[in-house]
């Protein structure tokens, strides 16, 4: 039998999909807990979203509408590459509109447009283990989760406060899920963390290289780790407004205007920004 190249719907054979599906169901049943799975090699490299991709390929059906974003934008090279692969192996319709999508795969952002119950968000995760920075060994972190021993995570935040006067974790600020598991929400900015709490949509997270799938079901309690006297705070977007659509309070990209040399801010969620501009009918 010669190598015919892949002929399966959604690239993977049914056995691979079944294994991912079994792991996904257990992940939904145990919110925030990382379920190990036999992560397959994908036609895109490890570290480029193979975990999220395997989730998408196991979930997707011919009637789905797919949106893929990377760092907030649909047009980034990574997002386009993933979208191409999924479309080539499924023929599903793709969209840039968060409203129209049924399945959204994203690297490092949760869309600004609130998601609905009929939508599933798949987040790409580089390092699923929130305790990895305090403990490099998997056998130890497994035990820490088993014993609900999260002193390491709190210690990390405590040291930041001692050194800098406040927490300095950027993106991927750890969260506590249903008061049982500390979870790495993936490198989303802190402003996105609250979107996980009591959401309408199911959020699935996949780490291909580390071979873990985890989940936050809808209507689930998710709290960013903090201390009573040092409560969790999001990135300071005050005084910033999007140069194009005028929105404020959303996560923004900082751009140097080439001509004037001044710093301007643009919505990081480009499709949401576009929708605002088209809805308002204004031209800037």
């Amino acid at each position: 039998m010669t190598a015919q190249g892949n002929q399966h719907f959604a690239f993977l054979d049914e056995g691979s999909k079944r294994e991912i599906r079994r792991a996904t169901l257990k992940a939904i049943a145990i919110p925030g807990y990382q379920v190990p799975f036999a992560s397959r090699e994908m036609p895109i490299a490890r570290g480029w979203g193979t975990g999220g991709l395997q989730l998408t390929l196991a979930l997707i059906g011919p009637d789905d509408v797919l949106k893929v974003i990377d760092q907030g934008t649909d047009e980034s090279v990574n997002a386009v590459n993933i979208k191409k692969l999924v479309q080539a192996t499924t023929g599903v319709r793709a969209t840039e509109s968060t409203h129209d999508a049924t399945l959204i795969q994203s690297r490092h952002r949760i869309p600004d447009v609130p998601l609905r119950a009929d939508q599933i968000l798949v987040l790409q995760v580089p390092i699923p283990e929130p305790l990895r920075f305090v403990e490099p060994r998997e056998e130890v972190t497994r035990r820490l989760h088993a014993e609900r021993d999260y002193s390491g995570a709190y210690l990390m935040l405590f040291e930041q406060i001692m050194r800098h006067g406040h927490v300095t974790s950027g993106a991927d600020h750890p969260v506590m899920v249903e008061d049982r598991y500390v979870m790495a929400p993936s490198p989303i900015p802190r402003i996105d963390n609250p979107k996980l709490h009591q959401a309408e949509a199911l959020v699935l997270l996949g780490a291909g290289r580390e071979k873990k799938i985890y989940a936050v079901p809808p209507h689930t309690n998710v709290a960013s780790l903090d201390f009573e006297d040092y409560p969790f705070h999001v990135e300071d977007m005050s005084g910033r407004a999007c140069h194009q659509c005028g929105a404020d309070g959303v996560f923004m990209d900082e751009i140097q205007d080439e001509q004037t040399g001044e710093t301007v801010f643009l919505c990081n969620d480009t499709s949401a920004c576009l929708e605002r501009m088209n809805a308002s009918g204004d031209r800037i």
Partner: protein
Amino acid sequence: MSSTSRIREDVARSQSTFRHLVNALARPGIVVPIGEPGLYDSRHDSSIDTPLSSSTQSLVDTLLDVETTFAVTSSKTEGHARLIRERTYARIAAPEEADFLFLLRGGSSAEQFMESARIGTLEEPHRGATVVIEVDELAPVEKPGTLRHDLVGPGIAGLRSLWIAADFDWCAPRNRKVVTYPLGLEVFLVDATNNLVGLPRTTRIQPASDTGAI
């Protein structure tokens, strides 16, 4: 543009069944459709004298394969076990070892069957079993013969009610198995009219006639 793959019917069925299972576990207590008649229905296969209900068949086809183990108790345990094995290559195991347990209509010693199911370990809670239980009726509204059950927990905004008719008590044994979260197991209830309800271990469920808060 890209070459579109025409999706095979069994592949499409597994995918849509899986999406319903995802929805059912993510929103415990909602009733989802499962087991629409499709390519293979063992009830219409004259060579099989122990067919499975189409809901159970759907679950078997979607979730089981050579990498999983299962145990069955039903009105025709041996026949059903052989059917599942030959169709999926999944291996038969004792209930205390099995990944999947099928508590089908007419099965004996349901309570012991449930009691022996795996609940995982603190380091590997995901190894808790998945139990498929055939009941008489599942409905999102009151129906004659059904009893209201109230559910709270992740996936449920506030409280959700569900009406169930079953001829044996599956709920108390299930509740005993999930009392030490994160240890526990997952239950899929299926009825005779292709309905399914998913109960992850996080769901607190009580029949409404019980006194006492959830």
